[in-house]
């Protein structure tokens, strides 16, 4: 193993922690991947009425946001929806 590999290698504990954080968000909100997919599709549908969005660059997920003063985390719906054209959309 070269020195470079040593730096590149991410410990498996990091992987575990990342996986766990995602897992617990869906556990805590009782929100299955299927439900997420439905939410995502409906959001696309609604936004598309008013503007042209980039559905490939779209990112919708439930993450956790830390509360003030180390009081734990709250689940948060995070949506990043790139707009292609403000005037576009299927409305007109």
């Amino acid at each position, binding site marked *: 193993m070269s020195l470079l590999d040593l730096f590149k290698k991410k410990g498996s*504990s990091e992987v575990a*922690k990342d996986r766990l954080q995602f897992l617990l968000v869906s556990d805590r909100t009782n929100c299955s991947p299927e439900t997420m997919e439905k939410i995502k599709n409906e959001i696309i549908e609604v936004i598309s009425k008013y503007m042209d969005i980039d559905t490939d660059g779209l990112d919708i997920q439930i993450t956790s946001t830390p509360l003030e003063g180390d009081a734990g985390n709250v689940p948060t719906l995070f949506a990043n929806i790139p707009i292609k054209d403000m005037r576009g959309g299927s409305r007109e």
Partner: protein
Amino acid sequence: MSEVIVVTSGKGGVGKTTTTANVGTGLAKLGKKVVMIDTDTGLRNLDVVLGLENRIVYNLVDVAEGTVPVRKAMISDKRCPNLYLLPTAQTRDKDAVTPEQMIKVLDEIKSDPENFDYIILDCPAGIEQGFKNAIAGADRALVVTTPELSAIRDADRIVGLLDSNGLRGKEDLIVNRIRVDMVKNGDMMSIDDVNDILHLNLIGAVPDDENIVVATNKGQPLVGDDSLSGQAYFNICKRILGDSVPFLDLSSKNGFFKKLVSAFKK
């Protein structure tokens, strides 16, 4: 008035029974009067870990059904004054006891003239009837986990259930089976990693220690001896009593440098 502490984890095999045995024995060694109750009906093991398996006559189900008074079913540990075990039945299942009956048994112990200080409940794995029975009369909980995905996930679920059953803020965390060498190599989550996720009050960090296996083989809890895990369990007992004890440096070798560092402290 006795304080009722439930030792729980969700996942099996993370060390609930070992923790119960050591915390119960440790508190008794610190001069407290302690009753440990095995609530894992049908799969009892606390008796074995304590080396009291040959002395069982009556059990929790007999007491719950009103067949015998609780004192008659309690086994005193001859090696440790003030320490008692109330075993459960091995040939019945979890439905043999209800939460209401459990609370009645606890009330019977609480009103005993002996004035027990602590009642420690060894909770079964899972979130079904046995878990519901165990948490029914609890004043506080020790949540045991190991630094593994599955155990932490289950602990998180358990904390949610404890929260919604009136124990929010009464949960303390024990991280068990820590391997410092693996944590250093980045291949095991550290205590901080675990608690970044669970956000509980950390009351204990216990190393993965082969002395535990030996202690279980012998039926003698190692709490208070000079092994690293024996010290770690003894510190948990002191913290339960409200003492502020620094966390052990788990990387030190058994019995040699017992240097105390506050590295794990917030």
